């Protein structure tokens, strides 16, 4: 569970584990990813990794916050399965969100829903209006 009451409001209503974001375009995933990255720069325990980070990740490892609460892997189809081990490990200690459309094998994860409205992004369990 994580909430930021800034702009936009970010509310992640999920426990620890690996969660797959809906395989649809234009639902707000990359907006969420960019917001999590900005929040990390303000000291929040959240971040997102995307395709452009991979040269750095391969060389030095992922730039994670200490004691992460939410870690997202944006555009994961573009670099699957490189972070499968990291996703599995992080899923034991925090909420891991994976933008995954279905190309290539990834660690087991549960589905989740994302709701994106102007000024607000919410992620929660499937079937529960978030």
């Amino acid at each position, binding site marked *: 569970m994580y909430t930021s009451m800034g702009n936009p409001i970010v509310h992640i209503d999920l426990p620890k584990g690996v969660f797959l974001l809906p395989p649809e375009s234009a639902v707000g995933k990359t907006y969420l990813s960019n917001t999590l990255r900005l929040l990390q720069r303000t000291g929040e325990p959240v971040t997102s990794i995307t395709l452009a980070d991979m040269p750095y990740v391969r060389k030095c490892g992922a730039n994670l916050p200490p004691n992460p609460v939410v870690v997202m892997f944006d555009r994961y*189809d*573009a670099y699957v399965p490189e972070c499968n081990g990291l996703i599995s490990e992080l899923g034991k200690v925090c909420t891991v969100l994976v933008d995954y459309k279905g190309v290539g094998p990834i660690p087991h994860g549960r589905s989740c829903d994302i709701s994106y409205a102007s000024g607000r992004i919410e992620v929660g369990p499937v079937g529960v209006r978030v």
Partner: protein
Amino acid sequence: MLHLHRSNQLPVGSKVVDDVEAWMVRVRLQDTPLTRVLLKEIEGAEWVSPDKFKDRFGCTLYIDALSTGCKTALLVAALPEYIIDTRECGHNARNAIIRNITTGNIIFHYGDFNILEGASDVIDVMLDGRHFTSLNAFNLYLEEV
């Protein structure tokens, strides 16, 4: 005709676009009926200018704020001489490409989902050496292979 290629059967020497976010800076969008349809179907958005669109909430944003799936579809339309990888497309973006684009090349990753029908059953795609002009026939073929 829209050519659908399997990722393991690409033509020798083909030019592949696999990072659509980066490649969007290489094209300048044109105001065409196809551009407008793709923006509307995938994003719920409206054309404003070559570098801006109006999102579903009425905010005018720069093109780089489009979803990766919508960028993929726009690149397929804008770069017919390239093969555009659709691995990052959501189902809605992939469906919009198949239903609306009749010239170009994509790498096609078939999941467990049929292409949802739009206003018309008419498509113009080539896959595995077969030419499909009916969405229903195309969906039946995908279920068989």
